């Protein structure tokens, strides 16, 4: 099969910073929609696994019917720096998606480095569940190019994306990112900047409360999830959702919320902290509130 590639994303390329759960998930979503991805991570071991992890997620997305039929997958390359993957390459990036760990200092450093490297006008998207974009904007060369996204996990299955317009985000950046999300088959909902934005500000304290209920012995993990599913229509239950988010990410996000809002319902409860200390991080580690095999 030869000839022009008519896949909508075919001429585009994303740089995804961070080859963790969200970085590889976002890369899989893009590749499945025909967009090339350069994946960057300073951890060489994680980078070595990234190609297989992305491939597996693209296959999962296809299996679930979550990708457009007949799309030629985008290409994936990996490297330890943006300069590393850009050598010998021409053309501009469609956008940079930062998906490193949910730590304000780590994100600020990565964003400062990358914003100094990319062409002005290239949208720099920080994928975060809770860190205010206005805070991160202090680190970048051009705050008007910075915007927030909050993809849910797994990005290739959940079709709605929370988009956070920071106080200094430019209209061109917002339009470009909304266009990109449309190409990715996602619906964007734009919200204003605040700790936890909308989804995490509501969901994360609720999950924290669900863990407290289990810790108090009121009900088992399974019973809490069954009640929230069966009575309140929650699709998976809060504790299975916590496992999918990653308990370490959840704790990081709760601390961000607690420190910035003073809301005591956002202080991570002891059972959550104990699980994280034990390395029981949820689906990605094979164990959290539930046991898993076959990491996705």
């Amino acid at each position: 099969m030869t000839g022009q590639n008519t896949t909508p994303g075919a001429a585009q390329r994303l740089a995804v910073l961070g080859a963790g759960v969200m970085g590889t998930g976002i890369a899989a979503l893009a590749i499945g929609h025909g967009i090339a991805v350069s994946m960057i991570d300073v951890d060489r071991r994680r980078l070595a696994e990234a190609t297989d992890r992305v491939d597996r997620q693209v296959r999962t997305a296809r299996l679930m019917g979550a990708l457009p039929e007949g799309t030629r997958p985008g290409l994936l390359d990996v490297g330890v720096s943006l300069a590393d993957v850009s050598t010998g390459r021409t053309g501009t990036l469609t956008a940079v998606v930062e998906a490193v760990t949910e730590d304000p200092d780590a994100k600020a450093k990565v964003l400062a480095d990358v914003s100094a490297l990319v062409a002005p006008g290239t949208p720099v998207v920080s994928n975060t569940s809770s860190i205010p974009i206005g805070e991160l904007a202090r680190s970048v060369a051009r705050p008007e190019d910075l915007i927030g996204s909050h993809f849910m996990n797994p990005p290739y299955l959940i079709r709605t994306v929370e988009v956070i317009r920071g106080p200094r985000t430019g209209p061109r950046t917002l339009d470009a990112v909304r266009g990109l999300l449309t190409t990715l088959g996602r619906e964007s909902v734009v919200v204003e900047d605040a700790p936890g934005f909308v989804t995490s500000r509501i969901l994360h304290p609720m999950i924290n409360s669900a863990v407290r209920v289990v810790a108090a012995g009121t009900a088992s993990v399974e019973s809490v999830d069954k009640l929230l599913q069966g009575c309140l229509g929650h699709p998976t239950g809060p504790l299975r959702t916590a496992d999918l988010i990653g308990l370490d990410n959840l704790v990081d996000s709760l601390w961000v919320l607690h420190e910035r809002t003073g809301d005591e319902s956002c202080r991570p409860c002891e059972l959550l902290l104990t699980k994280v200390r034990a390395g029981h991080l949820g689906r990605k580690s094979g164990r959290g509130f539930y046991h898993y095999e076959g990491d996705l």
Partner: protein
Amino acid sequence: MTVPSDQEVSDTGDRVDTAAPELVRFLTARTGRTWPPDTDLFATGGLSSLFAMELVVHLEQTYGVSVRGTDLRLDNFRTVRRMVALVDRLRNSEPGDHGA
């Protein structure tokens, strides 16, 4: 590129070959339940559809097949019988005959 033999696997045949007992054992071990050959694994009250990818990997590793292209559809993994038929077809097809 060859034309894929990627049609949805028929579940009307009555042959459930040697893959079936192993597959039933695997499913039972992973889920703690028994699965008759024509039971829909993903129907209401069944397994999460995310488990389907585990099934794909299990079939590939156990039977030396590669499930690619349009064979990657949930309907091919809905029942033990359909999975056995898929494995049977892929094992008997030429390399590269099952899509990119």
